[in-house]
């Protein structure tokens, strides 16, 4: 049921009522009572907590939701350490907690390694990676550039949007695959 609701929200184009979120979270919490370490349910609850964080206007509440999300992703990773989405979500929740540390860098690295051609993973690692770019080592920076290159095949528009939001045209303007999207912005640089 929770999966059905997630798919319905994704296809809908209107804001989701917070009561709907609470209802689906209840399904997932019930599911955890039958299978306490179900990684799928843990991941979905983590995702809902991040959604709650983004909707919150109360710092204390937003912080609590993000911490809960991080705990859920960590717990799910114990069951599914090869899930790139979980690693990417862990990196994102740590970014929101301002925990720029080795765990975040490891999460970024694992996400990229385990899902190199997955468009969503490409977008998430790029988004988090650019946010913490000054702290990345050269290896992770190069990996991020390779992710941008890979993203040009079938995921170029969204990758370009992220690069544009960070004003990091220097990373993309030399890549011929992005010329047709970024030519105008690159010519201004």
């Amino acid at each position, binding site marked *: 049921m929770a999966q059905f609701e997630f798919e319905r929200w994704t296809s809908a184009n209107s804001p989701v009522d917070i009561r709907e*979120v609470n209802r689906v979270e209840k399904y997932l919490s019930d599911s955890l009572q039958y299978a306490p370490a179900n990684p799928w349910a843990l991941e979905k609850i983590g995702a809902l907590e991040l959604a709650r964080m983004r909707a919150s206007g109360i710092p204390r509440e937003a912080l609590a939701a993000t911490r809960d999300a991080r705990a859920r992703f960590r717990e799910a990773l114990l069951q599914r350490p090869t899930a790139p989405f979980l690693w990417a979500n862990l990196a994102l929740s740590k970014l929101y907690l301002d925990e720029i540390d080795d765990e975040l860098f490891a999460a970024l690295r694992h996400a990229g390694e385990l899902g190199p051609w997955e468009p969503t993973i490409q977008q998430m690692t790029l988004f*988090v990676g650019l946010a913490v770019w000054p702290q990345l080592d050269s290896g992770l920076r190069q990996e991020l550039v390779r992710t941008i290159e890979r993203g040009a095949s079938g995921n170029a528009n969204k990758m370009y949007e992220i690069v544009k939001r960070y004003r990091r045209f220097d990373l993309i303007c030399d890549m011929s695959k992005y010329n047709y999207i970024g030519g105008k912005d690159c010519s201004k640089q």
Partner: protein
Amino acid sequence: MIDSIKLFKGGGPCEAPIAAKTRPAVGYCEGFLYKLCKAARALGGVVLLTVLGSFSIDALAQAGYVHAISGTVFARDASAGRGPLKVGDTFAVGTFFDTGDSGRVVLKFADGQVVVLGPNSTAHVDRCRYDPRNGKARSLAIRLVNGSMRFVAGAIAAENREAACVSAGESTITILSDGGVDFTVVVDTRLSEEVGVAAATAGEIAVRTPYGPIPRIEADQAAPWRPGRGGLPPPLPLAAMPAVIQAQVAAMLAIALPTNAPVDVNAAAKAVALETTLAALPPTAAGPAASASQFPASVFPGTPLSSTVTPAGGGCVGSPC
């Protein structure tokens, strides 16, 4: 970019221009004093002008009014002392605003500028000189002592960005873009060293902080400042900021604002006070009260859930997306 920051070197960023100190009767924030001066001149009222000249015009004029309020908000000025504010109250230059734990207030100025103060905030109107007929006699200075503030430029800042000065704690915000700006600044000065963040919603700003300059914050970007950590981090998309910052800014952006067109302060204040009084009346038989169970759209501001779990136009939380 850097030049605009240098402009503030010298006698303090929000210090009143020399002209304002030596010429008392050149500016005001609404039309009453202008009409009074004009009438006096027509009558040859030298005595009246002399009396007027002995006052600070800035202090006499109504700079703006309270457009909306929630919780308890106090105002303090030299003449009236301290008291709780209500919708429709006017205020003059020199007024301190103080919001409590749950207080929020929307202030509208004569030039159309809108200032929103969040909970636990203190702000001061240092200067407001607005003559609709004379662009040179316009200036504005707002100081956020502590807390959170959203600033939407009115005619003064939109037409001459250098005429507006906004400070937050020890930091100074410079408006870089012509034609208006909308930004939120949060500052905590209760600590031994100031921490803050500025987020631009429209237009571009720069911030001079105690720890160095932030040369440019563009729309949809935010930049924090705090001591240590080897220099200031570069501005990032707001969606990549820590959860606490996103929540603080989201709370300010969720508050409905009036338009930023110039107003006659007294007329607008009366109108909004009347509107509030009417809204407080019990519902008539004509229709039921609004359903309390309906959640406002701002619960998920502006975006469907599929987007709220998607950071910054890309990425996705949860799998599969």
